[in-house]
């Protein structure tokens, strides 16, 4: 018992450690409004190899692909010896003298995961304590976080700690399964989670140094439940209110561990003390982890070579006097395919890329809905409020609500204890029709068609002009306006898919983007705003019409909200636009058909949207690997394969680099979250992936569990990154290409350390494009840059591995 150092773990120490551990866990949003989250959010202050060591210790999770994956790419020539060598040069390590040593070391990975008390108890007793614990926490958390699945709700506003204690004090299951006295143990707990946590730490005999990885491990074992609580904390942080959910959850975990330790004390004490001691040792990166990190960097480099070649290849780009149509799309990689197809329709078609919330951070109330929808990036607080429909719609609104309430009453009739029998006997045979309708996909999915949204936040004309000026500036659209400017949000079109919101627009908080697009179009069509813009040097011709639209990413149909404003003077323009959009949709679908299983042609792609058994209606952002902020003509006519976020940016007109700062701190960060979510769900599907869709069981209306119960599964389902035969997403770290002076970028990185660490620690790659739009400079960390086209780039890989 020489390891016992509990006298050092006082309450403030434990509190601090618990706060730090909470930050190590990424949040997960509910499936109604899910957005991509970087699973390594809490590890961005360290590199991949260090993170590998950390996660290996606590969960045994690898953060790279297995060595064979890289070796296979090496053998087929996708990754060259030079790629690996360059990556190796960036890492100063004596263990790995050359490329062969890297390849050899990578294959000798050995996990050194530290078991917790429950694991030790399993080895000792043969009872699956971690499984029982996950099952019990799942039953409790499922009820606690339920948003309306169960008619008898469990949550009446208690804190996590109080609610769990109340549950666990009544739950007889642990005792039936052999954990004697558990309910009593729970009943005797202090009312303060903090005190209980400290007492548990002391009982477990952890030292202050051991708390970091131990707490992190205990929260990780809760999987999505901890991430969901972290989401509550995230929201509370944004609102500036306190939240102790993570601490409470941690306390519940430790109470379990203590109860199990108490039960098997004599048998486990010695092993456990050793593990406590190991938690207190610093993390060491093994040569295998280092080597895998190098190989990952090499894989990133290989992809960057291909991208650089694409950007150099000559293409014909004839400039036109005045575009017939300008279309602003979301930067989402799925837009790239459509934009390319759309521009191919006519020389007069120009497209731009901008974050899909179009600068309007709107908290929106949909038609006949009480639910506030944050149609904005989750990094922000709402800036404006909006609602669908005007006062004129109030009667329709009321009728729609009554119908919805009657439907809800019928739904409760269907599910309640006794009435469900009457429901079945009175209406069961109707389901013959429903089964036939759904098996043939006959119900049809309409594009969102709520009445025109309007801002309810009172903005003065000046404020409106300010907003319009900022937004137009940020999308580098301040002159040469076409007759039609289409603002296209995007949304997916899927049936029976719990992860639908993950396919919608992340910048709109997991909603489809039509509301923000329509709001912006209305703002820019306002004569007062136009006049105000003119006074500030932005002249929008009188014949320019802004029009809101929605790009359906599953079927590539574009819906125009042309009823929002008078279009009498643009009838011919709109007719031409519709033709082009229709033709572009076919081309885009044909391209998507190539990678979608069972899609022979473009028509098959559109049908997937209505198929209730379809697990892969579209590929979402799978394959995303680059972010390019540059004028569109740098990429026009180049097939980027639907793998690039394209942000329009013209640094020459960005006098104080405010727009650059915005791009590097908002869209780039959001893109990194998306890229790393795909990365995490691919390399560590068991921990950061959403599991097997075939087994998904939607719980509480907020998430999915696999099968009967246990932990909530956050991240992307296996079927969203893998097509059954091969990966549809190559786990690569995003390459950010920006056409802007390096000094300007350095200044911004210096000002935003949280963004800088993403690049310095290799979670993202940064490139500066030159005056020809070629990848000219690679950011090499610590605000230094090296020329990209030199083969010998000694520093380039610094820390990237």
């Amino acid at each position, binding site marked *: 018992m020489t390891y016992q150092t509990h006298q050092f773990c006082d309450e403030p120490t434990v509190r601090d450690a618990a706060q730090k551990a909470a930050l190590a866990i990424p949040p997960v949003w509910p499936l109604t409004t899910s957005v991509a989250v970087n699973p390594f959010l809490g590890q961005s202050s360290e590199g991949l190899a260090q993170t590998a060591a950390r996660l290996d210790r606590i969960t045994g999770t690898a953060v790279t692909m297995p060595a064979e994956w890289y070796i296979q790419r090496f053998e087929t020539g996708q990754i060259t010896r030079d790629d690996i060598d360059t990556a190796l040069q960036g890492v100063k390590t004596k263990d790995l003298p050359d490329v062969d040593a890297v390849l050899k070391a990578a294959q000798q990975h050995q996990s050194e995961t530290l078991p917790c008390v429950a694991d030790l108890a399993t080895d000792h007793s043969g009872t699956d304590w971690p499984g029982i614990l996950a099952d019990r926490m799942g039953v409790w958390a499922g009820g606690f976080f339920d948003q309306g699945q169960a008619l008898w709700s469990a949550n009446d506003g208690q804190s996590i700690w109080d609610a769990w204690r109340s549950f666990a004090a009544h739950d007889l299951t642990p005792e039936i399964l052999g954990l004697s006295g558990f309910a009593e143990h729970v009943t005797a707990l202090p009312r303060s989670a903090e005190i209980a946590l400290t007492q548990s730490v002391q009982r477990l005999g952890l030292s202050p140094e051991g708390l970091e990885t131990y707490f992190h491990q205990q929260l990780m074992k809760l999987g999505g439940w901890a991430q969901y609580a972290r989401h509550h904390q995230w929201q509370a942080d944004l609102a500036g209110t306190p939240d102790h959910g993570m601490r409470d959850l941690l306390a519940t975990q430790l109470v379990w561990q203590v109860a199990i330790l108490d039960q098997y004390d004599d048998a486990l004490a010695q092993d456990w003390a050793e593990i406590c001691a190991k938690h207190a040792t610093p993390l060491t990166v093994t040569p295998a982890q280092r080597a895998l990190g190098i190989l990952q960097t090499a894989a990133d480099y290989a992809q960057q070579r291909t991208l650089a070649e694409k950007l150099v290849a000559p293409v014909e780009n004839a400039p036109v006097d005045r575009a017939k149509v300008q279309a602003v799309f979301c930067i989402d990689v799925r837009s790239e395919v459509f934009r390319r197809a759309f521009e191919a329709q006519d020389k007069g078609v120009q497209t731009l890329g901008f974050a899909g919330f179009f600068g309007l951070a709107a908290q929106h109330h949909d038609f006949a809905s009480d*639910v506030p929808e944050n149609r904005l990036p989750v990094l922000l607080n709402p800036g404006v409020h909006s609602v669908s429909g005007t006062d004129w719609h109030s009667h329709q609104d009321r009728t729609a609500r009554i119908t919805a309430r009657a439907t809800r009453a019928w739904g409760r009739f269907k599910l309640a204890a006794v009435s469900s029998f009457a429901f079945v006997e009175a209406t069961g045979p109707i389901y013959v029709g429903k089964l036939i309708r759904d098996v043939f996909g006959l119900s049809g999915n309409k594009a969102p068609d709520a009445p025109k949204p309007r801002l309810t936040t009172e903005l003065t004309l000046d404020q409106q002009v300010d907003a319009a000026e900022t937004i137009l500036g940020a999308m580098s659209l301040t002159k040469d306006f076409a007759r039609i400017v289409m603002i296209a949000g995007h949304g997916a079109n899927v049936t029976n898919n719990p992860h639908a919101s993950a396919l919608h627009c992340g910048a709109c908080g997991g909603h489809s983007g039509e509301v923000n697009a329509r709001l912006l179009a209305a703002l820019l069509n306002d004569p007062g705003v136009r006049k105000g813009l003119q006074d500030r040097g932005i002249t929008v011709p009188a014949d320019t019409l802004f029009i809101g639209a929605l790009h359906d990413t599953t079927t590539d149909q574009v819906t125009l909200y042309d009823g929002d404003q008078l279009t009498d003077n643009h009838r011919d323009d709109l007719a031409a636009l519709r033709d082009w959009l229709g033709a572009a949709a076919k081309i885009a679908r044909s391209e998507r058909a190539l990678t979608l299983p069972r899609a022979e042609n473009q028509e098959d792609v559109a049908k997937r949207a209505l198929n209730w058994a379809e697990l892969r209606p579209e590929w979402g952002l799978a394959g995303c690997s680059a972010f390019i902020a540059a004028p569109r003509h740098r990429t026009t006519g180049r097939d980027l394969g639907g793998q690039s976020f394209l942000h329009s940016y013209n640094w020459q007109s960005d006098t104080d680099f405010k727009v650059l700062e915005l791009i590097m701190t908002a869209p780039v960060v959001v893109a990194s979250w998306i890229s790393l979510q795909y990365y995490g769900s691919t390399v560590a599907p068991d921990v950061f992936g959403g599991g097997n869709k075939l087994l998904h069981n939607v719980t509480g209306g907020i998430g999915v569990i696999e099968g009967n119960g246990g932990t909530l599964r956050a991240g992307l389902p296996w079927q969203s990154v893998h097509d059954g035969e091969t990966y549809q997403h190559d786990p690569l770290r995003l390459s950010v290409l920006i056409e802007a002076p390096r000094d300007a970028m350095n200044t911004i990185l210096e000002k935003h350390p949280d963004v800088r660490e993403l690049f310095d620690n290799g979670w993202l790659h940064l490139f500066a494009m030159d005056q020809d739009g070629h990848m000219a400079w690679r950011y090499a960390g610590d605000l230094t840059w090296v020329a990209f086209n030199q083969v010998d780039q000694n520093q380039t890989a610094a820390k990237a591995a």
Partner: protein
Amino acid sequence: MIYLVPLLAPALLFGCALFGRSTRTAEWGALAALAIVTVSAVILALAGSGTSPLIGAAGLGLSTRLDMLSIVMLLLVAFIGWIVLRYSKTYLDREPGQDRFMALMCATLASVLLLVQSGNLVQLVAAWIATGFFLQKLLLFYADCPGAIRAARKKLWVTRLSEVSLIAAVIILFWTYGTGDIATILLADHGTAAVWAAGLLALAAILKSAQFPSHSWLTEVMEAPTPVSALLHAGVINAGGFLLIRFADVMLSAPIILAILAMIGGLTALFGGIVMLTQSAVKTSLAWSTIAQMGFMILQCGLALFPLALLHIVAHSLYKAHAFLSSGTAVDVVAATRRPGPVAIPNAAAVGRAFLVALAIYAIIGTIFGLTGKSVQAIALGAILIFGVAYLLAQGLADAAPRALTKLTAGYALAATTGYFALQSLSEWMMASTLPATPAPGPLEWALMIIALLSFGGVAVAQAMLPLWAHHPVARGLRVHITNGFYINAMFDRLINGWSVKKSS
């Protein structure tokens, strides 16, 4: 010979299962099976009910019984089977083992089709065992998954017991009546031996249809892909109820067994229905719903309301197949309930008014459909409808509910009541010549009905006012026990060491 036509349906599906490439052939096999069954319905309409010649010896073997009961079940199972296989073809696309999966689904479906057309005891037993066997394999589609293994072990115990029970029942029947032909047995005079047979049949049915306390495996079958749940809950689980209805004449000779069935069924119905209220995962909630619905169906069998039990099987299967296959919409469904604002909570007075209005609707619509011709048992069970409709009405009669909502819920209530009586009349009319009539109730039946009405009524009232008491500290504690299904599952796990793992050291 023409009565052998239905046998082609399972034969074809077994063929699909056996000869590989099941992913390609399964849906077409199922569609062909549906066509064969439809043709069989025409045969039944033209030739009347009958049993095919026996393929076997000594009165034992394979033979098809074609009558209203078997044709209804055949149509139901073939239809749902086709839907589920069509769904699976896309759903499991490129999943490793899809061929194996489709083959097992075909084999399970074929077994159920074989079961429901059984004209002979041997076929009945063989098909009964086959459904259990193939389902077990499907349950272990992911054979490494600890949850699946645990559920499968529980299911195996229950399945084995039900098989032993059925075999014993069949031996008694064969011994007593000297034939394996089911139609002959049903028409014979039933003596004391029939009571034993009825008891064993009842036990087999209870175990097969997940009745309390043997239900707990059913709530864990979500460890297999969704279509398995759909086929299980809409097809296989009905086998217990089908058995009781098939042997309705034998069952009627044992009132005491029927009474026990009514008690277990009623208990399971309430138990499952209440536990369902607390379940936060959609598939788990649906599984508890199935337990409850099967309980209600067994209660109907216990009250000798066999045509209604059959109606319940059909109606529930269709609903549940759809509910499982569309369970991915649960996120949208829950979100939609939150949009139109808070639920208007009815107080005691509103609930009282709702019960009176429901009673009035029941009396009026019932009279139109001819309430007087119905058995006492059917009228008593109709109270369930009153309770259910009252719940619907109460939501519209709450003080905070606007008038328009009251009208809409009243409209739904009228529609539901009309649907209820129409379907009931239809089912009674269809089954009049196939299934025995419900006998007049004796004191035991009266007592059972009164207990059922009181307990269902009590739960209905409590349910209607749930938001008013759900968060009382006592209720909060009770909710924990209910969420855990009163620990039947945990005790079962303990009994069979469900949570044990191989020690790693």
